[in-house]
């Protein structure tokens, strides 16, 4: 796993951003924009929409850096969750806007097409997300992690989607993340 690329710890940068420090914001952006953007792109796919969301995510950070609470995790994780949430919101709004008309266009066409194809979670699970370490997880664990992380579903929504008990979903999320950690640790020497 690669290290944060800022020369100053990210938490310090956020503290300075909260005080309106432009230089700290530039440094934070340069270090972490690609981290957030890669994730947003995987969720939205459309580059233009992803760049729009990226700008909103960092604008929110500029306005709201004081909301960062180190008791609830590290700054990179804070950024990643904000990027993920915004991207999922955007995807849902795009889908809502298109749904009425796309559904009518699709009527009678594409036999066998999945009727849930407009759902971000289905899109998340179906698209080629199985890159890198995720691809090495057993399918049931990978699916839970993808639906949660890239599809924005809660654990009970995942349980309903997969027709599994919620306890199974919770366990798979934990086991999947533990396994991912092992996979990432194994390849650490060759990481970026």
């Amino acid at each position: 796993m690669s290290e944060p690329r800022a020369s100053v710890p990210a938490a310090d940068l956020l503290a300075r951003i909260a005080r309106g420090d432009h230089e700290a914001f530039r440094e934070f952006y340069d270090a972490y924009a690609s981290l957030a953007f890669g994730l947003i792109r995987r969720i939205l796919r459309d580059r233009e929409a992803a760049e729009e969301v990226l700008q909103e995510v960092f604008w929110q950070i500029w306005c709201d850096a004081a909301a960062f609470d180190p008791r609830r995790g590290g700054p990179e994780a804070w950024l990643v969750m904000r990027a993920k949430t915004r991207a999922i919101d955007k995807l849902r709004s795009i889908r809502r806007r298109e749904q009425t008309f796309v559904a009518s266009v699709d009527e009678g066409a594409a036999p066998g097409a999945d009727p849930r194809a407009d759902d971000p979670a289905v899109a998340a699970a179906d698209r080629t997300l199985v890159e890198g370490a995720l691809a090495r997880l057993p399918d049931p664990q990978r699916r839970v992690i993808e639906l949660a992380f890239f599809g924005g579903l809660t654990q009970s929504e995942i349980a309903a989607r997969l027709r599994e008990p919620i306890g199974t979903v919770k366990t798979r999320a934990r086991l999947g993340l533990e396994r991912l950690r092992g996979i990432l640790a194994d390849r650490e020497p060759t990481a970026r």
Partner: protein
Amino acid sequence: MNRDEIMELAAGYALGSLERADRVRFEALLEAGDPAAVAGLREFQSTVVAVAEDVREAPSADVRRALMARIAAEGGDAERVMRPAPAAVTALRTARSSRIWPVIWAGAMAAGLAAIAVGLGVSASYERRIAELSREAGALREELGRQQSVVAILRDPATQVVGLAGQSASPEARARMLWHATAGGIFVAAGLPPAPPGKAYQLWAIAGQNPPVSAGVFTVDARGTGSLHVPPLPGIARVDVFAVTLEPAGGLPAPSGAMYLVGKA
């Protein structure tokens, strides 16, 4: 709560997938400094960040430029406003070693400056928040306006529904145009191949024997779906044919590329 349960909550929290009740429970553990919750979260969050690291991708330089310009224009006051405070405090400390009146004056001025700085700082922070809310309200109003015009088009019996069929370049493609001569239209296409870099699809309206008139340019997502809100076309009371061609990304005044979709009104 046993350790396994705490680790399951930590995993769900790191993935952002906990139900509200579980999230509240886990945040209470974090706030209480529960060692298993804190360690579990740190471990899983670093894994989640590593998954995101796996797909790092550089955005275009335009995003950075736009963001910095936005900050300079709308949020740039806080830094200048907040800075006098430490200087004022230093001035106060230096004054302590000299005579009493300068100390009192320096104290009063420092307190005044600090109060102004804090007041302006708070004010700048509220102004940023208000600007942000006002932007969100603007975006929602814009979206509402779009939705209202869509509903108006759908409700009007004068609205025509035109089906477009895929041509040899994309036999699987299909599209529908809901067209109203004075209100404009809504065009939705599905099954189109993604436009190559530097290219986009262009929708044309053809009235009688007149040359095609551009009705807009659109792209499609990875599933081949694209849509376009078409404004009324000046001087065109009735459209006979809608067609889609592949053109350079900004569109052209007249069609030049292969035809992908066509439909008669």
